[in-house]
Structures are given as C-alpha cells and as structure tokens.
C-alpha cells in the first residue's frame, strides 16, 4: 500500500522526479553514514541490496530523517555543516549551518528546529531548518554528543562525553534546567515513546542509566555481563526502544553484541552477536527490523525484532556510523 501511495504522490509531482527515478525509488530504504570514506550507503530494505553509494561531505556521522521521511539530514563533521538530501532522488538539496564539528543531532518532532551537538566547541547549536537561521547556541559540557528529544518536544537532552552529564534543556527557553551526572563517556540519550523513560548509555562506564523524566533522577543503571568478553570491552553506545515499549536494544561497541532489554523489568534478556564495534541502531518504520552499524567490520547487521535474531549482514562503506530508515 505504502509503495503505491508514494508512487502516486511522486507521479503527481510531475515528470521531473520520474526523470531522476532510481530503480528502488519507492521501497523502504536505509541510509547509512560511512565515517571513513565520506559516503552514505543507500540500502533497499526489501531486497537488502545496496542501491547506491552517495558521496557526502567529509566524515559523515549523525544521520536522521524528516518526520515525513522525505529529507535525510547528515552531519558532515569535518566540513562543519549539515547536508540535506532528497530521500528519493538522493540529491543534495541544501546545506545548513551546524556550528563547528557537528557529530550528532536531533530533529524536533515537529520537523523543526534541528539541535546539533558541536563536539569541539562545548555547545549545542539550534538551527531553523527552513531558513538556516541560527536560533541559539546553548553552552553545555565538554564534548557534547548524544542528542535526545522527548516525544512531546518539550525537553531536549544532550550528553557531554568528558563532563559525564546529561544536560536537560527546556526547548521553550533553550536553557538548561537539569544536569544529571552519569557514568563515563555518555554517548546517547533516547526517550521511550511514551516519554516516561530517558535512557543514557555510558561507553567507558559500561552502563545505561535509565532516568525518570518526572524527577530527572536515575531509576536504574543497567550493566552487562557477557561470558568470554572482557568487562572493559563492553561499551554501550546506540540505544533504541520499540514504540510499544516492549523491547529495548543497546549496541555494545567492541563487545560486538547488541543487548536485548525488557524496558519493564530493565533486565537484559539476550545478547545478539553482530559485526565488529557496533555503534548505532535504527528501526525500519514498521519496527519489524533493527539495523546495527558495525564500524570495524564495515557492514550492517539486520536484526529480526520479533525473533530476536540476526538475519543478515550487508557490506557498507568504511566505518559505518549512523543509520536511518524511511518508508
């Protein structure tokens, strides 16, 4: 159904798009940023074949999509800009200001503005994606990285890797209202879909702090044990929680595993073996599959969410970093 809708929508736009149309232009596609060869792999999620490898700015890392799935935003870290691609034609539409060394960002649920972590400058830059205006620069801790936003858009959370805090920003004022000390090198902040939990992964600390946004207090620190893997190789990074709140997935870096966690009990239930130095995670829009980027084996693993099994791995560019899937 979706495919037909998209197809007719594109047809309605006239022949312009058709001229540019790629063979896979209507399928669900995954976009994967490849940090070390400055490209973005576009993966057809039906066939799991690479449709195209798009050249991007230097050192692409953070990647996300507009709420309607039409635009792909990429942090080109070494070019100090955010690039915006048309998800269908794969063409660069425009670039946005980003502040220096943008690493990760999060889009407001309304689709605007974009909150960007400036890793070298201890700032979060807020940019209007419509007109590229600078809305605010919010001073945060050292090496800001993880960026999460509450489902209602009221709170933006940034983690600073060297300060070891999650900074909670009121998006109405762009001011910090709370600083939560977590374990070393916090990488990712992710809200549950109901907004009742905030998960923050700590790469060097080896834990995930689950925070109650009602009080901004840590409810539990989840830690990990894998037989045969040294504790200090277990480095939590990417976090994704299913919309129905039934399962959470945490990428464990050089442990080469993705942990499956029950968000109700906050207990780890399973470890899935994926590629090397697993970094970020992204669901397909129907949440039937989860994709993990494996930075050191230059591939992504496709995880069947219901079966909790890795079904396939697909070769990408060098050092795949982030992933987003659009319908």
């Amino acid at each position, binding site marked *: 159904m979706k495919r037909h809708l998209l197809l007719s929508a594109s047809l309605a736009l006239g022949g312009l798009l058709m001229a540019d149309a790629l063979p896979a232009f209507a399928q669900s596609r995954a976009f994967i940023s490849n940090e070390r060869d400055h490209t973005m792999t576009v993966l057809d999620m039906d066939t799991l074949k690479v449709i195209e490898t798009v050249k991007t700015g230097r050192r692409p890392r953070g990647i996300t999509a507009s*709420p309607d799935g039409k635009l792909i935003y990429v942090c080109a870290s070494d070019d100090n800009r955010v690039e915006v691609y048309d998800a269908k034609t794969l063409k660069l539409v425009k670039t946005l200001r980003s502040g220096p*060394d943008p690493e990760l960002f999060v889009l*407001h*649920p*309304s*689709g*605007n*503005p974009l909150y960007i972590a400036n*890793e*070298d400058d*201890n*700032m979060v830059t*807020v940019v*209007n994606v*419509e*007109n590229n*205006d*600078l*809305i*605010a*620069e*919010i*001073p945060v*801790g*050292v*090496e800001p990285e993880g960026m999460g936003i509450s*489902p*209602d*858009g009221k709170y933006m959370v940034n983690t*600073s*890797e*060297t*300060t*070891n*805090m999650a*900074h909670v920003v009121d*998006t*109405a*004022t*762009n*001011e*910090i209202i709370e*600083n939560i*000390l977590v*374990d*070393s*090198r916090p990488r990712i902040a992710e809200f549950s879909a109901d907004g009742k939990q905030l998960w923050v992964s700590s*790469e*060097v*600390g080896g834990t995930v702090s689950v925070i109650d946004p009602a009080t901004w207090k840590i409810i539990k620190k989840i830690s990990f044990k894998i037989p045969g893997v*040294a504790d*200090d190789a277990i480095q939590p990074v990417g976090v994704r929680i299913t919309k129905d709140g039934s399962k959470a997935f945490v990428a464990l870096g*050089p442990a080469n595993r993705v942990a499956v966690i029950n968000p109700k009990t906050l207990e780890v239930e399973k470890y899935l073996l994926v590629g090397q130095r697993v970094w970020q995670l992204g669901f397909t829009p129907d949440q039937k599959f989860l994709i993990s980027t494996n930075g050191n084996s230059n591939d992504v693993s496709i995880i069947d969410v219901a079966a909790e099994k890795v079904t396939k791995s697909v070769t990408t560019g060098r050092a795949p970093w982030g992933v987003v899937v659009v319908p």
Partner: protein
Amino acid sequence: MRSRARAAATALVVFACAALPAAAQNATPPAGAPAAPPLAAKPAAAIAPEQTFRIGVIRQIPEPPPWIAPLQMPPDNLGIAGAELGIKDNLTSGRFLKLDYKLATETVPTDGDPLPVAQKLVEDGNRFLLLDVPAEQLLRIADALKDKDVLLINVGATDDRLRMADCRANVFHIAPSRSMLTDALAQFLVTKQWRNWFLMVGRTDADKLYAEAVRRSARKFGGKIVAEKTWDYGPDARATAQSEVPRGTQVGEYDMLIVADELGEFGDILPYNTWLSRPIAGTQGLMPLSWHPTMENWGASQLQSRFFKLSNRLMQPLDFQMWEGVFAIGSASLKTRSSDTAKVRAQLLAPDYDLPVFKGVAASFRDWDHQLRQPILLTHATNTVTLSPQAGFLHQSSPLDTLGFDRPETTCTFK
C-alpha cells in the same frame, strides 16, 4: 593566570553568540505536529562558584641534551599548556555544579630548587600540586609537605622507585613508570615473535634505569637480550654515524635493536645506519608513550583538536600527562563537590572511579602504589601502531595491571 583569562574570554564569546537576536520567529510548524518551540534564547546566568579547586603546577626544566633535532625542539609551554586545557575542561564541566578551578604555574630552572616554590604554592592556598621534577626533588617535596593539607601529583618522573621502595602516601602518579613503558613494548614484540633483542644503553643514569626496565620486561614476557652495548661514541655523533654505527652494531643476529637514550643523544641516528636491516624501538624508533599527536581513536582526535585550538601546536606526552592530572581532580570533583583533599583523595581511590582518557578503556589508580593504570601507545614519528596491553595478556582483575609492578610484586608500604 593566562588560562583563566582565556577561559573567561571564551565564556564571553559563547554568551555573546547565545545573545544574538534570533531572526527565526516566523517558522510555522506543519499542522497536527507537535508545536515548534519559541525560537529564541537568553544568555545563561553566571553562577557564583561554591567550591574552588586551587591547582599549582611546578615544572623544573630538565638538563638540555647536547643537540636537539629541529623537529624535537621543546615548546616553552611544554606540559603547562596541557594543564591549562585541563582547567578549561574542568571549568566547562564544573560550572553546572558551581565548582571553580584555578591554576598557578611555576617554572624552575635546571639548577634551581623547586622545594621553596612548592612551599610557597601551598602557603598561597593551592591544595593540589602537579609536579614535573626529578625523582630526588619529588621526594624532598613530598617529605617536606607530609603534614600539609595538599595532594601531590607526579606528572613527569618515570622512576620505578617512586612507586616501589620510595613510594609516598601523599603522592599520586600520572606519568607511566619506566616498567609500564617497557612492559607495553615487550608485550607487542613478543606478540610479533620478535623476541631477540640487542640492547644499546646511553651514558646517563636515567638510561641505565630504562635499560634495567627493559631487562625486567624481557624476563617477564619471554624476550631475550642477545647482545648489549653501551653507546660510547660521544655526545654528538651525527657527522660520523654512517661509519660508526654499522661497526658498533655488528653483534650477530637479533630481531630488534632496543635503545635506552632518554636524553635523545643518539637514538635517532641509529635507524638505517645499523649493520643489519633491523627495526629500532625504545626511547626512539617505536616508542612506548602515554600520548602522541597521531593518536585519534576513541575520541582522542577531539582532545587533540581542543589542545591545538588552545595552544596552536600538537599535544606531546607531558602535555597529556598534565591534562590528565588536572582532569583527574576535575573528574573527582564532580562527585565530591568539595575541594577537601581528604574527600578528593578518597574519590581518586574509590572502586568506581574511572577516568576516560581517550584510549578505549578507563584509567584508574592502583591502591597499592597510587600509579594511574592506563593503556600505553606504541608509536613512531608519524603513526600510532598499537596500544598495550596487547590482546591475550590476561589478568585476574584488570589487563592494565599487566603493565608495570603488580600488587603481588610491589615493595611499596605507605608511611
């Protein structure tokens, strides 16, 4: 003082940017979506500090070598620049908890006495002292300040005895010991099956200590010293290296020439001048170091880039060690929220204290000798080859404790 002024200037710039009028009030969110937030921000209010951490730094300029290669000319602010970056980082983190950090730096000439300088810094209220002074001076300072309310942090001296028989309860060690460095190298050479070593030792006492650490590492990890020589071609053999080094290195077969030349008198003229085509490691060639400008993994490039922005040069091991020293206090301060030295000291030794130092795994202090356990880089001039501990060197509590003197071997008893 300079670093504080600079940090303040940076803060002003940030606030000024934040105060720029945002001309983006007219963005309209799509219907049905969560409303976009107001598109303006106010500058953050200045927070009055509640706790001040006063950190003093003393660097005694070491004896200069007879000659210095142009690429290795030490910068005037060697080390100090790292401490300044540490303060800047601490200020960025600490302001969220109303913590303040101040740095006082003192440089002592080669033939000067750092003890009165240390005493003065303590009288001025500095409760944390970073020391880059020779081992003998460090012991004098530690003993003279034994009953004072001050924590000493050794950022420069690599002498193993400071962690062993001459350990002091009021001293923490950030600088890796010689045995940590040579163990890191030995693990790599053994992993590569380059087990037969030719050891070339310089003329200084420090070189003899480095050589002793190499011998110990060979015994520990199964390396074999098949030949050993003392460098006796004078302090500056650059002009005659091509004829002298081939003769001086005819010792039969070996896998690796290990150099003990801490001053840098001859190690750099050995490569490509040896009789056999063998690589060189130790104080020159492939070097075990705490840090190097070519280190970029695990977020290291961010620290390198912050350092370059502040100092307009590359970050050297002593810069890194001074940054680590200041950062170690800063990291503890976020938990203690108090500059009380007893509390900071307890936090540095707490089981959950971990210091993320951009090397993949966290550093922490050994309780038996106050040495910071951390991975060691093996690097040549233009590349970081690997980090030790190497895979497969196992340990019952931390693989990092395969480097240097482990708990069962220590002769340290704090008094």
